[in-house]
C-alpha cells in the first residue's frame, strides 16, 4: 500500500490526465462507429447503478461500499442488492447512524489509498457530514499541494421524491457545485447512471453523485456498448438529448425527463427546443451550453432546487459572460418555489417545476426579443 501511495504522490496529477486522454480517444472513436439507437435491452437506473458498483468492485479490490442499510437490507433503495452476499462484510459495510462519523471514516480510508463509495440515505442527511465533506474531502488535496488526494464517491438520492416533505426533498446540486475540489454529477438515464458512476469511482477526486429516488425505477434503453464493463462517461461533459434550433433548455436529473416532455409539446406549436442534459454540475460544460445558445439565441434553465444561488443562476452568468451578443431574449429560469417543500400532494405540485412551467418559459423566451438593430454595432 505504501508503495502505491508514494507512486501517487510523485505522479501527482500527471498520470491521470494521460489515462483520461486515452479513454477519451477510445470513446470518441467508438462513438463515431456505433450509434445509440441500436438498443440492446431496457434497464432501469437502479439496475444500472447496481451493475456499475458490482463491476467496479470486481475490477478493483480497493473499492468498497459503506453506508446505512447497504448490506443486510440490500440498500435503502435496493441499489446495493446482492453486493453483501457477493463481496462479504469487509467490502460492504453497514454503518451505525452517524453520517458525520462514517463520512469522515470513508475519507480517511481514501487518504490511505482505498476507494470508498459512501452512500447517504438521502443527501438531506449528508448535511450532518458537511464539515467532513468540505473541509476534509474537498479541500485537503489542494491544501496539501496534491500530497493527500482522496478518491472517494458520495452517492445517494437528491432532490424531491413524492410526498416526503421538506427534510427529505432538498436538491443540493448548487451547494456542492460551488466548492472547488469536488466534482458533482447528476445522472438522468441508466446510461448516465452507469457511465458516470464508473467514471466517478475511477476518478481520483472526491465526487458527489446525485441520484434521484423517482428515477431508480425508470427504464431506459441501453446499447451493447453501454453494457460493456469498461464503459464510462467523461465527467464535465453535457449531452444534447434533443437537438433543436429555437431555444436551449438546460436541465439535469429528473428535470431532463420533464424538459423532454416539454419539448414535445413545444414542437407541436412550432418551437424546436434543444434539450441539454448537463450530466455534470461541476465542472459545468460551459462550452456546450454556450455553443447551443449561440445557435438558438434563447435559454431556459430548469432545476428542481431553490432558485436563489442555484445552478440556473450560474448557467445564466456563464452565458451572459460568453454569449451575451447572441441572446435574443432574457434568460428564463425555472426552479422550485422559494419555500421549504410542503408534504401535501397539491402543495408539493405547486412548489416543484412542472412540464407546463417549462413550456410557458420557453414560449416567453421565444416571443420576447431585443431588436437586432440595437445589438448591432
Amino acid at each position, binding site marked *: 500500500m505504501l508503495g502505491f501511495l508514494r507512486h501517487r504522490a510523485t505522479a501527482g496529477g500527471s498520470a491521470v490526465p494521460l489515462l483520461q486522454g486515452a479513454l477519451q480517444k477510445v470513446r470518441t472513436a467508438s462513438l463515431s462507429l456505433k450509434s445509440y439507437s441500436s438498443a440492446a435491452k431496457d434497464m432501469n437506473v437502479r439496475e444500472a447503478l447496481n451493475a456499475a458498483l458490482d463491476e467496479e468492485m470486481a475490477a478493483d479490490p480497493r473499492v468498497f461500499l459503506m453506508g*446505512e*442499510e447497504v448490506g*443486510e*437490507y*440490500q440498500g*435503502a433503495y435496493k441499489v446495493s442488492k446482492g453486493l453483501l452476499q457477493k463481496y462479504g462484510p469487509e467490502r460492504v459495510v*453497514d454503518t*451505525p*447512524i*452517524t453520517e*458525520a*462519523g462514517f463520512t469522515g471514516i470513508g475519507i480517511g480510508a481514501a487518504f490511505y489509498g482505498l476507494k470508498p463509495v459512501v452512500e447517504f440515505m438521502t443527501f*438531506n*442527511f449528508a448535511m*450532518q457530514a458537511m464539515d467532513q465533506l468540505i473541509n476534509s474531502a474537498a479541500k485537503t488535496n489542494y491544501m496539501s499541494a496534491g500530497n493527500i488526494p482522496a478518491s472517494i464517491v458520495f452517492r445517494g438520492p437528491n432532490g424531491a421524491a413524492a*410526498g*416526503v*416533505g*421538506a*427534510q*427529505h426533498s432538498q436538491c443540493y446540486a448548487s451547494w456542492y457545485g460551488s466548492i472547488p475540489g469536488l466534482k458533482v454529477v447528476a445522472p438522468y438515464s441508466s446510461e448516465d447512471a452507469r457511465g458516470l458512476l464508473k467514471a466517478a469511482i475511477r476518478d481520483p477526486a472526491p465526487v458527489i453523485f446525485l441520484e434521484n429516488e423517482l428515477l431508480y425505477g425508470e427504464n431506459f434503453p441501453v446499447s451493447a456498448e453501454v453494457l460493456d464493463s469498461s464503459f464510462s462517461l467523461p465527467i464535465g461533459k453535457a449531452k444534447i438529448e434533443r437537438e433543436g434550433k429555437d431555444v436551449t433548455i438546460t436541465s439535469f436529473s429528473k428535470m431532463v425527463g420533464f424538459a423532454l416532455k416539454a419539448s414535445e409539446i413545444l414542437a407541436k406549436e412550432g418551437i424546436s427546443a434543444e434539450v441539454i442534459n448537463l450530466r455534470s454540475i461541476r465542472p459545468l460544460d460551459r462550452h456546450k451550453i454556450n455553443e447551443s445558445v449561440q445557435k438558438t439565441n434563447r435559454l431556459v434553465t430548469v432545476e428542481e432546487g431553490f432558485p436563489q444561488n442555484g445552478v440556473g443562476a450560474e448557467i445564466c452568468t456563464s452565458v451572459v459572460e460568453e454569449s451575451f451578443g447572441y441572446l435574443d431574449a432574457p434568460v428564463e429560469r425555472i426552479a422550485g418555489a422559494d419555500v*421549504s417543500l*410542503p*408534504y*401535501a*400532494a*397539491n*402543495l408539493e405540485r405547486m412548489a416543484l417545476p412542472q412540464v407546463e412551467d417549462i413550456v410557458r418559459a420557453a414560449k416567453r423566451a421565444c416571443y420576447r426579443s431585443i431588436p437586432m438593430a440595437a445589438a448591432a454595432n
Partner: protein
Amino acid sequence: MYTGMVTLQVLDTVFYEAQRQGRISFYVTTIGEEAINIASAAALTMDDLVFPQYREPGVLLWRGFTLQEFANQCFGNKADYGKGRQMPIHYGSNKLNYFTVSSTIATQLPPAVGAAYSLKMDKQDACAVTYFGDGGSSEGDFHAALNFAAVMEAPVIFICRNNGWAISTPTSDQFRSDGVAIRGQAYGVKSIRVDGNDALAMYNTVRAAREMAIGEQKPVLIEAMTYRVGHHSTSDDSTKYRPANEIEWWRMQKDPVNRLRKWIERNGWWSSEAESELRIDVRKQQEKLLRETIERHPRDYPEDVPL
C-alpha cells in the same frame, strides 16, 4: 394508563391498515413500545417540554391530542395544524408542549438541552424530556447534548428507547458499549437502565428522574429496554432481516399491554369483558372518525382510493 396503551395500539392498527389501503401515504407504528410511551407520559406534567423522535405518539395521546387531530395530521388536510406541510406522523402541538416531530435522527437532543437550560434560568418547576432510539445514540448530536447537559446542569431527561433495531441494523452493529446507559455515565449524567415493557417500572423511573432533574437541576438518562415489534415504518418489511419467530416471541410473550392487563386483572380491577368492550369501542370510534375525516375533506384525499 391501561386504556391509554390500548387506545394507542388500536390507533396504530387502524392507521397502519389505512396506509396499506392507500388512504395515507406513510405511517410509523409504536407496537411493542406502548409502555414507554404512555407510562413515561403519565409520570410527567403538562409543563414538561417534550422533544420526541417519531415513535412516541403515545405521549401526545396521553396529553390530550385527540384521535381527530392525529387523523388530520396524517391526512394533511385543511384542519391539520401543520397545514399539510409535513409527512404523516410528524405531529406537534404548542399547547401540549410537544415539539413537532422532525425526520432527522437525534437532532432534537441539543434543543432539548437548550430548552431545559432556559427552564432552569426561568426557575420553572418543569423539565425537558427527549426521546430517541438506540440508533439515535450513535449520532454526534447525542454526544454533544449529553455533554452539554452535564456541564450546564440542565434539568433534562433523556429517554432512550433501546428497541434492538435501527431499521435493519441490530444493536450489535450499532455500538459495542454496554448499551446506552453506560454512555450517560461516561458524560457524568446519572443513568439508569429499566425494563421498558414494564409500565409500572417505567412510570416510577420517569417520576423519580423528574424529581431528580428538577430538584437537583441535573440531567438524567433512562435506557428503556424493549423491542420494536412492528416494522420500522410502512416502507419497511422487517422479516427481510430478522426471523419472524423472534418478532412473534416478543409480540406474544413480552407484550407490554398484555403484561399490564394481567396485573390489573389479577388485582380485580379489570376483566376480559371490559377488555373486549374497550377494544371494540375504541376501534369503532376510530374507524368512524377516519370515515368522517375523509368525508369532511374530500379534496385532500387520493382520488383513486375507494372509500
